[in-house]
Each structure stands twice: as structure tokens, then as C-alpha cells.
């Protein structure tokens, strides 16, 4: 177990180092640089000023040398300043991560609750299975940003019940919930299809296992069979997907956050990439990659904890 964790953490370090290099090079391939933006913002800047600014910020150095300097600074815990926010990049990052985690926790729990419920319904009541399957099919194909827009049109524009986007303007739980409702619903609807499909399949498999027959033969009630014997086995794949989803959604909420103008990680990355905010974009990318890899590890560990058969492997 400890060896597994150590190996995976080492792999993660290698992956992050490679990613930071690749991302740095890719960002070097993007059009424009901060000085170009400064020229656009202030037409009085002369070419000589621009050259002096580039030299001052090291932008005239070759890309490899710039990467080396950046990596060295990061290893010393210096993450640099965010150009867009004029604050240390790390200080910009934490509130965004918090906002995303709230959105993620709410929408993922809702998706699991409803999705597993639908999946169980399909597995236990075969006559309802086609309806659940059709729902899952549509849920997997719906573009999140379109779903979000439809919800905005319905609940914010037509009915006027909920705000169309942004963050809570007043303190208090109720205000926060009002602003969370639509983005959470969007992400939950888009994600619950996978849970419905997988939990239905897992429950059906579990119910066909020989130990279910022997439990019934011993006289266990249907409820006991379901909750004591089938459900725990069916939970393993569902929890695995949940852990993987959590990692993917830290950045995958990008589109939803953009549609609802929520200042989370996804939107932060998008804005940083678009605004040539190199320090912030790199740091945010690395952080989300780390979270994604760690959630994959968490999924593996959870699987081992839940399924004793995997522990020897």
C-alpha cells in the first residue's frame, strides 16, 4: 500500500514536471505577450519603450532560458505575480479553488444521489429501464453550456426566480444558494447520466452473483439481499467514477463557470490563458493536473478499501 502510494506520487512529480515544460512551451506559441497588451493599452509607448520593457521582464530571452528561470523560482516556492490581478498568483488561486470545490461538491453529490437512484430503479424495475436508458443517453449527449443557457433563459429571464450568474452579492447561506442553484443543476444533470448507467449495470451484475443466490437460499429477505449483499458490491465502480469525476471537474467546470460567470478554477485558467497571464495560467494548470492525478490515486485506494479481493494485487 505505502509502496503503491509512493510510486504514484513519484509518477505524479514526473508528470507535473513534463506538463510544466510542455505548457510553458505552448504558452510561448500563443500570439502576443504582455508587452503587446501594454502597447495596446497605451498608444504612447514607443518601440524603444517596448524593447526596454521586454528586457526588463526577460521576455527577450530564449524560451528555454525563461523556462529554466521560472522552474527554479517555483522550486523555491516563488510562484510569481498574476498580470491580470496584480497580486501574487497563489493568492489569486486559492479563492478560485474554493469556489470550484463548493460547486463541485454540491453538483457531484446531487448527480450521484439522483443518478444512482435512477440506476437502481432501472436495475430493480426492468420495465422502467428503457426510460432511464433514454434519459442517460440524452444526458450524456447534452452540451453543458447549452443546458446552462436553457436554465438561465427559463429561470432567470422568463421566470425571474434566480440570478443568471455571478457570485453571491449578499452574505448568508440563502444568497449563496440562490447563486449556486443553476450552475449546480447544470453540472448535476450533465453528470448524472454516467452514474445512472454505471450503477444500473453494477447492480445488475451484483444481483447475478452466486452469493446472492445463496443468501436467498438461506432465507434472507429481498431487502437484506439488496442492502447487505448487492449494494456494497455495486458501490465500488460508482465510487471509483465519483473520485475520477471530482478530479476532472476541478477544471472541467470551465464551461459552466464561464456561462454563469463564476470566478472558479476553470474560468480562472481560461481568463489567464486569454490574457497572457503566464504565471497564473501555469500555476492553475499544474494545480488542476495535480488534483486530477491525486483523485485517480484516491479512486484506486477507495477501490482497494472497498473490495478486499483487490488488496493482494
Amino acid at each position: 500500500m505505502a509502496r503503491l502510494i509512493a510510486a504514484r506520487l513519484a509518477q505524479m512529480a514526473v508528470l507535473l514536471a513534463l506538463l510544466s515544460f510542455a505548457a510553458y512551451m505552448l504558452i510561448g506559441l500563443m500570439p502576443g505577450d504582455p508587452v503587446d497588451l501594454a502597447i495596446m493599452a497605451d498608444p504612447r509607448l514607443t518601440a524603444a519603450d517596448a524593447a526596454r520593457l521586454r528586457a526588463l521582464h526577460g521576455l527577450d530571452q530564449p524560451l528555454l532560458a525563461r523556462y529554466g528561470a521560472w522552474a527554479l523560482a517555483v522550486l523555491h516556492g516563488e510562484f510569481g505575480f498574476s498580470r491580470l490581478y496584480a497580486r501574487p498568483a497563489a493568492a489569486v488561486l486559492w479563492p478560485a479553488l474554493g469556489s470550484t470545490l463548493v460547486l463541485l461538491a454540491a453538483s457531484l453529490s446531487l448527480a450521484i444521489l439522483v443518478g444512482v437512484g435512477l440506476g437502481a430503479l432501472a436495475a430493480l424495475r426492468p420495465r422502467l429501464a428503457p426510460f432511464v436508458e433514454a434519459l442517460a443517453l440524452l444526458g450524456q449527449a447534452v452540451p453543458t453550456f447549452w443546458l446552462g443557457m436553457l436554465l438561465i433563459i427559463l429561470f432567470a429571464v422568463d421566470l425571474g426566480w434566480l440570478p443568471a450568474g455571478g457570485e453571491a452579492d449578499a452574505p448568508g447561506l440563502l444568497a449563496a444558494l440562490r447563486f449556486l442553484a443553476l450552475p449546480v443543476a447544470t453540472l448535476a444533470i450533465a453528470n448524472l447520466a454516467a452514474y445512472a448507467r454505471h450503477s444500473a449495470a453494477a447492480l445488475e451484475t451484483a444481483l447475478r452473483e452466486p452469493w446472492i443466490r445463496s443468501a436467498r437460499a438461506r432465507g434472507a429477505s429481498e431487502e437484506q439481499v439488496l442492502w447487505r449483499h448487492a449494494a456494497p458490491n455495486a458501490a465500488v465502480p460508482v465510487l471509483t467514477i465519483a473520485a475520477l469525476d471530482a478530479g476532472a471537474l476541478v477544471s472541467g467546470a470551465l464551461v459552466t463557470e464561464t456561462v454563469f460567470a463564476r470566478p472558479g478554477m476553470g474560468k480562472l485558467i481560461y481568463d489567464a490563458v486569454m490574457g497572457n497571464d503566464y504565471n497564473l495560467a501555469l500555476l492553475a494548470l499544474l494545480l488542476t493536473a495535480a488534483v486530477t492525478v491525486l483523485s485517480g490515486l484516491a479512486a484506486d485506494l477507495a477501490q482497494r478499501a472497498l473490495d478486499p479481493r483487490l488488496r493482494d494485487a
Partner: protein
Amino acid sequence: MAFGAGRREGRRPSLPGSGAGPRPEPDAESPALSPRDATDAPIPADAPPRPARRPGNPRLLAGLLLLGGLAAGAALADAVAGLLGHDAFAPDLFSRFEPPSAAHPLGTDELGRDILLRLLYGARVSLAVGLATALAASVVGTLAGVVAAWRGGLVDALVMRLADALLALPALPLLVVLAAIDPARLGLPARGEGLGTAGADILRITLILALFGWVGVARLSRAAALSVLARDHIRAARALGATEARVLRRHVLPNILAPVAVATALAVGGAVLAESVLSFLGLGIQPPAPSWGNMLANAQELVFAAPLSALWPGLAILLTVTGCNLVADGLRRR
């Protein structure tokens, strides 16, 4: 087309040297959602090819009908434009936001352009990106998967570690970074040169999406190739003196086409969805060329002025991706 190849393969049981069951069962381990399929026994290999088949495959049929309808719409875009007598690209500021009428079946957008025509031209872009990406991903992925399974050892480890690494990375932000790259700095055709704006954008988006798309195909085809390579007919072919190239081409490749076809169909839907996301974010197909994604980006700014303009492009994406998933599901259950 990859689907066609996969379908033919499924019902042709007499390959040279393949005695029993050339039908790979890619999904034997993931049970179907509806219990009816649980009792479906695989068709025995020596059964007569046609009559023994189950009556119909509604999923495959529905998916093919959906996609066929969309493809026909895309192909007929010019004809519809001639019929209606509008230009999908020319603004007409005197007829902005017109409600649906005989002249404009779905109304007009904020520049007075016909929404139906823009949807049909957008279908060309979306389907082109989807098919091209899926094709590139399945060719590269199959090649990588088969070679990894066949060579084993270091090659296998390298390919699979690369695949794992790509899967472990957060895809969407990386797509954003990749899509923001200036193609001119890589020596690719820049916008407006040679291929035309839309063509250059389609090529750019296809390359970016295929960069991630091959992974799924590679993993599936590697697993399928490993199981095929362990079968007796491969040993028989080798014993008869077949070269390795012939073994791979004649005995391995035909037997893994079914899972590859499933993965390809899924990849088409995934690519259509990803293209719409990138275009929605302003990084994909650039206006004035219409794409469902950039039409939705426009619609978002008009949520209050013209809320209904958001409806159609999203519905088109939903139907396309549903069609692809239905085809994949149908192929999987054959």
C-alpha cells in the same frame, strides 16, 4: 467508413485460419442496461450469416437515421439556400430577429441571416471536424495499440505510459491552451491563407482533438489485439510461415475492427461536442463561418434580446452526439 467496415466484419465468420469465434466480444464484461440483453447468447460462429441474426437493432438504426438525416441536411445546404433565396453569410440589417415564417423557417439572427441555413452550414463544419478527428484518432490509435500489443516490452510500456499520462491530465484547460496557439508560429497554414478561414480552423481543431482522441482507441485496440494474438489461429498462421506483417494485417486487424468501430463512433460524438465547446469559447471556428458552437456563443449574448436563438444549435449538437452514441451502442450489442 469505419462503421461500415466494422459491421461487415461482424457477420463474416470464415476468415482464413480462424476456426472458432472471430467475433470479439468487446463488452462481455460490461453488462447491458436493459436486462433483456443479459440473456442474449453470442451468435455461434458457424451459424449461417444472415437468418440467425436477432430481429433488428433499433439503436443502430435510430443512430444511423439521425446521423444520415443530419448529413443529408449538411449536403443539401446549398440547395436549401437556393430554394429559400437567401445567402447564409450576407447580413441583412432590415430583417433582424424575424420570427419563423415561410421565407425564414426558423427566423433570422442578430444580423438578419437565416438561422436554418446557418444551422445547415454549421452541420458541415461540425460533421467535418467530428469525422476527421475520429478517423485520425482511430487510425493512429489502432496503429499504436496493435504495435504496442505485438511488440510488447519497452514499446508497449512507452505507448501505454504516454496514454496514461494524457488521460491523467485535465483535458479541457489543455485544449484551451492548445487552441489558443498561433498556428503561424508552428509553420501551419495561418488563418485566411490557402485553405480559407474555415478550412484552416477545421484542420487546427481536428489536429488538437486528435492529439487527445487517439488514447481511447489505442487502449481498446491494444486490449483486443492482445487477446487475439494469444489465440490458436495466430500460432497456426505463424507455423504456416506467415510473415509478421501478414499476421497483423490478415489475422489481427480484421478481428479487432468491431471494438475499433465502437470507439470511432464514440470519438465522432466526443469531437463534435469538444468542437462546440471550443467554438463557444471563441477558440474554435471563427465567425463569419457558422458553427453550432459559435452560434451559441452569439446566442448567449442575446439571452435577453432573443432567447429562442439558443435553442436550435444546441438541439443540433444534442441530436448529433446522441446519434453517435446510439450507433456505438448498437455496434457494441451486435
